[in-house]
């Protein structure tokens, strides 16, 4: 076991014991579960030279010993998947995926795995900090004196995601789950803690869907900040993956310039949907509805309807009700998922649907929607225009948003967040 801080600055000697310089940094190749050390940076006569790991016969807290006498510096090139531990990771911020928070690297722990030195863990505990300050030992003595330990805290390298753009982009090129495995709400909280530059880096490392889910969980002003910083093409791709009602709210908050650019880059159909949603007042049924819902003609059987659901793979919030519309797209009935499943497969849905579904007009106030949801215990309310054509649905979570006090959990104690100015 070796800590990076123990190796940095130690003497480097050649095979014959002649001093060459000091250890300045170590290079690892990202990709494996535990990245192997592939090179060493030696500081000699005020400049840095790179040596391949093969030419190092040993490295420990006493320093490095080379297996050669002649140093060939011309052959080394830093490959795209390689990073420098001290320069790129030490003291930087990383995401602790398990603990779901952003922490700072105090030290890096290297271990022999299968005969080679690998980066195995990140030290984020007090012991690492004390070691870096060179007072770990006296502190431990002191702590033992008062029967206290020194808190140690390591995070396995696999549970770590760097946030700096340079390293994040290196990690992106290798198969790695990390952040994308987190629940979107947790991911949103992590991204919220990062600086603007780092946010863009993290978003860059996510696929469009994961990014859309996480952004959907953020505060409106954070969403806007991120979107204004993204490449317009990427922003458009992410918007397409978001729920149309969320996308519309977000797009409405963007600057005129970004809005035009991003909408122009979106798929035509999705862009039109978003724009249509934006025409409704913010506090009306039209403003909070989503245009993602399942509508079928009345002449289908239960089995056909279930097949249709399988085909469409609707999102969790929108699968519970199937709306029945006529050829003019007018709402004529509604079915619950339960009705479909308990019915005999060959039954025509018109025989068991509710023929007079509860619905609201697009101009209805948010309160009316909430009241309906509460009174009838609905999971979603259909929204129709003046002619009774089905325009969208308001799901229970969006309807209830008004009832919840806005910051549902304790807000981050920022010095001064913008939450006071852009409250919804």
């Amino acid at each position: 076991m070796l800590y990076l801080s123990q190796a940095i600055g130690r003497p480097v000697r050649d095979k014959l014991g002649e001093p060459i310089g000091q250890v300045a940094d170590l290079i690892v190749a990202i990709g494996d579960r535990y990245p192997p050390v592939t090179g060493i940076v030696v500081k000699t006569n005020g400049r840095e030279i790179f040596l391949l790991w093969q030419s190092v016969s040993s490295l420990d807290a006493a320093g490095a010993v080379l297996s050669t006498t002649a140093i060939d510096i011309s052959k080394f090139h830093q490959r795209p998947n390689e990073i420098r531990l001290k320069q790129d990771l030490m003291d930087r911020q990383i995401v602790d995926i398990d603990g779901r928070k952003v922490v700072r690297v105090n030290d890096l722990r290297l271990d022999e795995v299968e005969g080679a030195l690998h980066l195995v863990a990140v030290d984020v505990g007090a012991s690492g900090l004390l070691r870096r300050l060179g007072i770990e030992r006296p502190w431990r003595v002191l702590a033992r004196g008062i029967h206290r330990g020194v808190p140690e805290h390591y995070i396995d390298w696999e549970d770590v995601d760097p946030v700096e753009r340079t390293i994040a982009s290196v990690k992106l090129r290798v198969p790695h789950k990390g952040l994308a495995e987190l629940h979107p709400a947790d991911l949103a909280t992590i991204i919220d803690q990062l600086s603007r530059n780092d946010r863009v880096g993290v978003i860059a490392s996510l696929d469009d869907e994961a990014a859309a889910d996480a952004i959907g969980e953020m505060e409106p002003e954070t969403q806007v900040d991120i979107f204004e910083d993204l490449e317009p093409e990427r922003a458009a791709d992410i918007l397409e993956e978001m729920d149309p009602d969320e996308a519309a709210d977000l797009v409405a908050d963007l600057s005129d310039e970004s809005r035009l650019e991003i909408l122009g880059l979106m798929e035509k159909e999705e862009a039109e949907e978003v724009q249509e949603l934006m025409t409704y007042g913010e506090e009306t049924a039209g403003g909070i509805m989503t245009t993602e819902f399942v509508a079928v003609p009345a002449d289908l059987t239960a089995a056909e309807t279930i097949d249709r659901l399988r085909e469409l793979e609707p999102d969790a919030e929108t699968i519970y009700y199937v709306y029945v519309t006529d050829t003019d797209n007018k709402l004529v009935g509604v079915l619950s998922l339960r009705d479909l499943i308990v019915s005999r497969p060959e039954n025509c849905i018109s025989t068991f649907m509710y023929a007079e579904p509860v619905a609201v007009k697009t101009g209805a106030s948010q309160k009316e929607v909430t009241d309906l949801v509460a009174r009838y215990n609905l999971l979603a309310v259909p929204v129709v225009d003046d002619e009774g054509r089905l325009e969208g649905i308001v799901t229970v979570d969006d309807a209830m948003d008004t009832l919840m006090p806005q910051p549902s959990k304790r807000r981050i104690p920022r010095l001064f967040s913008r939450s006071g100015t852009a409250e919804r």
Partner: protein
Amino acid sequence: MKAPVLGFTPRVVNRVRFAAILGVLGPGLVSGFADNDAGGITTYSVAGVKYGYELLWVLLASQIVLFFTQEVGARLGLATGQGLTGLVRERFGVRWVTFLTITMLVANVGSIVAEFAGTAAALSLFNVAPAISAAIAATVVILLITRGSFGKVQYLFVAVGIGVSLAYFASALMAHPDWGNAFHSLVVPSLAHAGTTNGAYWLAVVATVGTTITPWGQAFIQSYCADKRLGPEDLVGERLDVGLGALLTNLIAGFIVVACAAALFSHQVTIDTNNPNAVAKIAEALRPFAGDAAQYLFAVGLLAASFLGLGVVPLTSAYAACEAFGWETGVDWRFRDAPAFYGLIIFFIVIAAFFVLIPGLPLVQVMFMAQVVNALLLPFVLVFVMVLASDKKLMGPLASGRFLQVVGWTGTALLVVLSLTLAVSSFTTF
């Protein structure tokens, strides 16, 4: 690019735009107001009582330097999105940041003591006992920080700052100052006392500059800009904000000096300045010359300014420490989840309150030592800031150009000399 159809009414766009402008205006203003905290007001009043209008030129000069130091701090925040201690750790390593953070925390405890002393002095004019005022102030501030909404607190801060400005503007008017003389002293350095014995004049000069440009002020503006997620596109607005903040800071300081100069210096009133209650005595002494209202306005201004300092200094300290050591940027933000952050804030406030509560503790000495530690730390902070701000790799297009580098390093060199002067002379006179 296809031209999209825009058949919709913009909903929140205008509001967000407005919020964005308001959002940029803030860090510089609050930072400027907070620079004129209890320590600042004490220093300015004493300067006015002792030297009349003579030190006004120092205010102008320190305002110009303040603008440039705050501008660099803001620019660092805009370009990197990180606070000062975070950047120092990444660039200069863990030892430097430990030194910087711990020294700053020690100095800040002294500053918070001064804020409590200011609160006590102001309330003593309304016949409130120091122990009670300290207890009230500590409770209110802790509640505000741990329970309050930070988005709203900033407006409170700005409102308080504006209140302070008006209070001192009014007190200055009531003291019937000689405006012509004041203006002349502002632009033409008068060195009548400069040659006098024991260098007290120069010490006052250094103290005036030192109370305006502080290490925590530097950390504050940067964290504030970063925390508001302002970015490179906000540079112009932020410079405007910093300029406005520096100007207002200077105006307030100027009115305080003018009020004291007109009412007290010109009537040869002397005040024992080695007393934590010196400001209260000054305010009391204002009454015969400027009227009852002036005394109370002066006290209210001091109270508000101390309160602003009480809010800002512990907050900045806790942020600096947490950022330096990577503590608890956790998911939920209850006290339990952020023990170090809240713990530090409460620790600072309670320790400082104790100094004021317990009679017989060396209050003046603590405040004085804090000033010296701040003065000694400032050169390090400024060198870090200047090096970081010139780093093209870190700052991108926001890196200091040649002009800002020359100005910045000149200002830094000047402040290093002043800081060393203060440190050396305070040890020899102490």
